[in-house]
Each structure stands twice: as C-alpha cells, then as structure tokens.
C-alpha cells in the first residue's frame, strides 16, 4: 500500500536523454497503465521505479520515502517481467516463496500466503512442477503469484500478457483486474496494447518518445486527447486526421469541401481529428464529406469502411452498422458530430481548445 510520486524523472543513456521529465502523483491503490509505442521508454520508466535502472535526475517517492538511492530489495515492490523470469531450476512452490524465505517470514505465514495465492491463481495442481513443464499461461500466473505473495507496497508489471494468445490474454486481463480489486494494491502496468490500457487503468500515462503526452482517465484520454499523437494512438481503428485550413468559421478539407463548424479558431492551418465512430452517414446531404470506399471489414456488430475522400488520396475510416449494404467502390456521404471534433496545432501537435460558447 503506497502512494508513488514521480517528480521530473529523467533518464539519460550515454548522454542521450530517453525519458524527458515525467511528473505524476499515483494515489494509494490506484491502477496506472503506462502505454505507448515500442521504444518510447515505458520499460525504462517502470524499471526506474523498480530500482533496476538508475534515475538520472528527478526523484521517485514510494510510500513517502525517496527511493532514488535504494536498492530494489529495499523498495518493497514486486515486479512481473514480460518473459516471466521464473527461476528454471526451482519448482513453482520454490519460485513463489523465494522472496518470503529471504525475508525470513515464519514458516506458517509463508505457507498461508502461498496457499492463498495458489488458490486465487488456480496454481495448486502445479506447485511441485518446474516452470518448463508449464504452459505459457500457467507460467504467467506463477509470475503473478510470486509477486502477489510478497504483499508489496506496489506492483509493477511490464507487458505481462504480451506472450499469450488472444483468449488467454482476455482471461488474464480479467484476472488481473479482479486481483487488483481484491488486494487494492498500487499498480503500475506497462503495455502497448490499448485494449489492456483502456480496460485496466484508473489512469493512463500515454508516452511518446520519452514524454508523457497525456495523463488522465481512459475516458478523458479517449474523449479529449491532449495531442495528435495520443489521438492517433488511442482508439481502434485509429482516428482520421486531416490537414485543414480554417477561415470564416469553416474548415476547408482536402478536396475543397467546406465544413462549417462552431468554435473554430480565427484562421490558419490545423490538423482535424475525426473518429470513425463519430461519423454518421448522411447520404448526399449538403456539406457531407464524400468518401470513396476502398475496402470493408465486417466484425459482426460493426463494419469498418476504409476509403479516401473523393478526388484525393486522404484516407478516411468510417464506422458502419454491421449489416450495412455498403460495398467496395461505393460513395458515402458522412458528417461529423460537431461536439466530437479534435483540432491540433500543426506545429506542436497539441490540442486546440476552442473558446467555449464561441
């Protein structure tokens, strides 16, 4: 149980900075997901919290104590590694109690914690097996169990589900969520899977090459992405982002179509973000954006049409009803929900906030 404070945390490798000052206050018991594309510094940040990487500048506090100079073992944290890092020469039982034995816990306490974790993770039948005799999902659970029995101040997980197949991933995701609800432990979870990020997190840190582009609840991040990067990263299929020039209260789209919208800035070039699910079919209505369908993906409940704005090469994705009769080569007219537009600065990529009521 602990609050974790990151204060302008930076990491430099060989004079090259890879984490550019991250500040965050993680409340006791909060589930925070660090999400971002490969190489953006997620693992590095997590490993700094764990004490496996030095902190080049800034401070990290766990449970009210600055831990910059503390060894991992003095930080009272537990970590689940992407490759599980189970000790191959020890049985599941030995793996799970390794840390407890080092902590010199009484025998009865060790047995009790082991039994509880094994029950929760359904590991009882495997306690005397070596890791190599387990399936990927079972290994994953052992790794979780090894962290769980420690009853640490904070849980750190680095892409714990990335080696599992889709079905198992869903199952483990629910189990992790459930485990967090039961134990109420502060958790930092790294992933590049946005479904994991959206479903597990109390709050997200969306990272973009060493910078925390946005920190917020999943809904906030989805509804009001703070940057073009976040907008493109969160949401599936990805948000449509077009370059528009603004003037006279209207945005001029590629292809020359004018879109009259409230709350536009006075003028200039902008990036306009439209989620596929925020576009509604409008037929040949005045002002609708004409989209020429190039391909269609049917998912059952929904279908996604991938096309281009007519007369241009600007791609556009549209969500359609699952039973839509649309087919390749069709022309659709779509209109955006006016309240669900996202405008980003061309230069900085940051979100443009229209003055309310303008």
């Amino acid at each position, binding site marked *: 149980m602990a609050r974790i404070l990151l204060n302008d945390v930076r990491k430099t490798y060989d004079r090259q900075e890879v984490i550019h000052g991250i500040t965050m206050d993680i409340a006791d018991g909060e589930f925070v997901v660090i999400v971002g594309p490969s190489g953006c510094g997620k693992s590095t940040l997590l490993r700094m919290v764990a004490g*496996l990487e030095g902190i080049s500048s800034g401070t990290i506090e766990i449970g009210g104590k600055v831990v910059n100079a503390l060894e991992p073992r003095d930080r009272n944290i537990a970590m689940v590694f992407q490759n599980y890092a189970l000790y*191959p020469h020890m049985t599941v039982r030995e793996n799970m109690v390794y840390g407890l034995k080092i902590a010199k816990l009484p025998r009865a306490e060790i047995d009790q914690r082991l039994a509880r974790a094994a029950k929760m993770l359904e590991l009882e039948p495997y306690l005397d097996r070596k890791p190599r005799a387990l399936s990927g999902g079972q290994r994953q659970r052992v790794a979780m169990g090894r962290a769980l029995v420690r009853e640490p101040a904070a849980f750190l997980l680095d892409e714990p589900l990335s080696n599992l197949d889709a079905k198992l991933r869903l199952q483990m995701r629910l189990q992790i969520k459930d485990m967090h609800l039961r134990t109420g432990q502060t958790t930092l979870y790294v992933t590049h899977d946005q479904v994991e990020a959206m479903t597990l997190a109390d709050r997200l840190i969306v990272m973009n090459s060493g910078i925390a582009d946005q920190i917020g609840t999943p809904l906030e991040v989805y509804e009001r992405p703070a940057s073009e990067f976040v907008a493109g990263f969160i949401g599936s299929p990805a948000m449509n982002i077009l370059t528009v020039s603004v003037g006279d209260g209207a945005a001029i789209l590629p292809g020359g179509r004018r879109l009259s919208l409230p709350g536009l800035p006075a003028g200039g070039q902008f990036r306009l973000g439209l989620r596929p699910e925020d576009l509604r079919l409008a037929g040949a209505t005045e002002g609708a954006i004409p989209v020429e369908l190039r391909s269609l993906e049917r998912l059952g409940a929904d279908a996604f049409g991938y096309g281009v704005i007519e007369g241009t090469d600007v791609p556009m994705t549209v969500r359609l009803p699952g039973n839509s009769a649309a087919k390749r080569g069709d022309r659709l007219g779509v209109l955006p929900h006016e309240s669900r537009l996202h405008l980003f600065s061309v230069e900085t990529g940051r979100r443009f906030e229209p003055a309310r009521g303008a």
Partner: protein
Amino acid sequence: MQRTVFPHKVLPWLLLAPQLAVTLIFFYWPAGQAFRQSTLREDPFGLSSTFVGLANFRRVLSDPSYLNALQVTVVFSLFVAFLPMVIALFLAVQAEKIVRGRGVYRTLMIWPYAVATAIAGMLWLFMFNPSFGTLAWPLRQMGINWNPLLNSSHAMILVVAAATWKQISYNFLFFVAGLQAIPRSLLEAAAIDGASRRHAFWTIVFPLLAPTTFFLLVVNTVYALFDTFGIIHAVTGGGPGKATETLVYKVYNDGFVNLNMGDSAAQSVILMVIVIALTAFQFRYIERRVHYG
C-alpha cells in the same frame, strides 16, 4: 530435432569414414595393442615375447611404487580438477562486473591456454627455481624454505599450480559463456525478491551453471589424469623421489625409460579402466543432480 534422411545406406558411412578412420587408427588400435602387450612379457633384449596371462597386472598391483603413484594421482587430480574451476569461476564472475575493457580482460585470461604444456611447465620451473627463480626469492624472504627440488610437498604444490594455471583459461572460457547464458532478468527478479548479490549467486547463478560445472569436472579430471604429463615431465620429472609421479607418468617411465613394456601396458590398461569408471560414475551420479535449463 530435425532428422535428415539420406537416400541410401552407403553415403552416411562414407561421410563418417574419415572420423572413424582417425578413431580406429589412433585410439582403438593403440588401445588394443596395450591390451595385447599387457598380457605379454618381453625378454631382456626385446627380441621375443611370451604370453603370461594376468601376471603383469598382479605384479603391478602389488608393487608399492605403483600404489604410491596411485596415491599421488588422487591428490594431484583432486586439486587439478577443482582448483581451476574455483579460480576460473571467481574470475569469470569478476569479468562480468567489468564495464570498460571487458574484452581485453577476457582475451588476456584466455591466452595461457595457447601456451604448450611443456612450455608452461618450464615457465613455472624457472619462476620457482630455488636458486634463480623470480618468485622463489620472495617466498624465501617470507621465511619459507622454498625448495621443490628437495621438498616433496613443495614439488607437489608446484606441479599442481602449473597444471591449474594452464587449465584456468579453459574453465574461464566456459564459465563466461555459462554466465552469459543466464538471463539478466532472473537476477533482476532475484534482486526485487530481496536477494543480496551473494545470495542470488548461490541460489540462482551457481545452480544454473551446474551443466557447465559438470562438463568442466569431467574435462578437468581427464586433463589431470593424462594431459598433465608434459608439466610433470618438465617441472619435476616425477621427483623428488617419486613424490610427483602420477600414474600416466609412471606408464611412461616404466615403458619408455625402463623399457618394461609388459608392466607399462598393464598400467595403461588399469588407467584406462579407472578413467572409464570415473567418467561413467560422474555421468551416472552427478549429472542426475545437474539441472539443464
């Protein structure tokens, strides 16, 4: 494992032929000769030989100097099997910690392996020669009456040291490779689990190195029993007295110096049996405890 299937039966044998030829000519044929010799007795002029059955074995095994050689060999081999491992493991672990110049350090550690056995022996002989040895002098200054030419313990220490030194490189190489094969994340997991470096070494690194350690134990044993001949020959010649005369050295001495072919052959047969038994024992009883990750 992929199984390659050859279209007909002759090709595989043809491909194996060179290796088989080498093995037959240089291993099985001499071994067979040793067996044959061990049951024969040559006349003093080496002109004729007669079949004597197991008489040579009986005489060798009741010869006190043979039992002495056996004892010397046990002591010598125990040291030479384990010392290089202990030292090489220590050095390999230290090498892991080096950040800058790791390659240079490793290369330097491997060089002694390129030195021929007899040269290595000469090197140690010169360094520790009681009258002009560079390193014998400081020993004398420390109040040790260093004289491997007269003192049999000193002689033993010297051959053990030389044989060990020569074998460290080889052991080092394998331990470095073994250490690198241990995933870093295991040690990180142990660090998070609260293990000190020392505890993690003994509970994780060392057990995971077991296959390497076992392999080196077998190699070092065979090395100590056979390949140290050159060192002993160069450094002490089996002396003083017979204090450093190992089994293999005695085989050579009785056969080629004293020209007693029957006894020498019987000894080499016994030595062969000992090595086979020892290796079989190691595989049977130690390998089972070894974890292959």
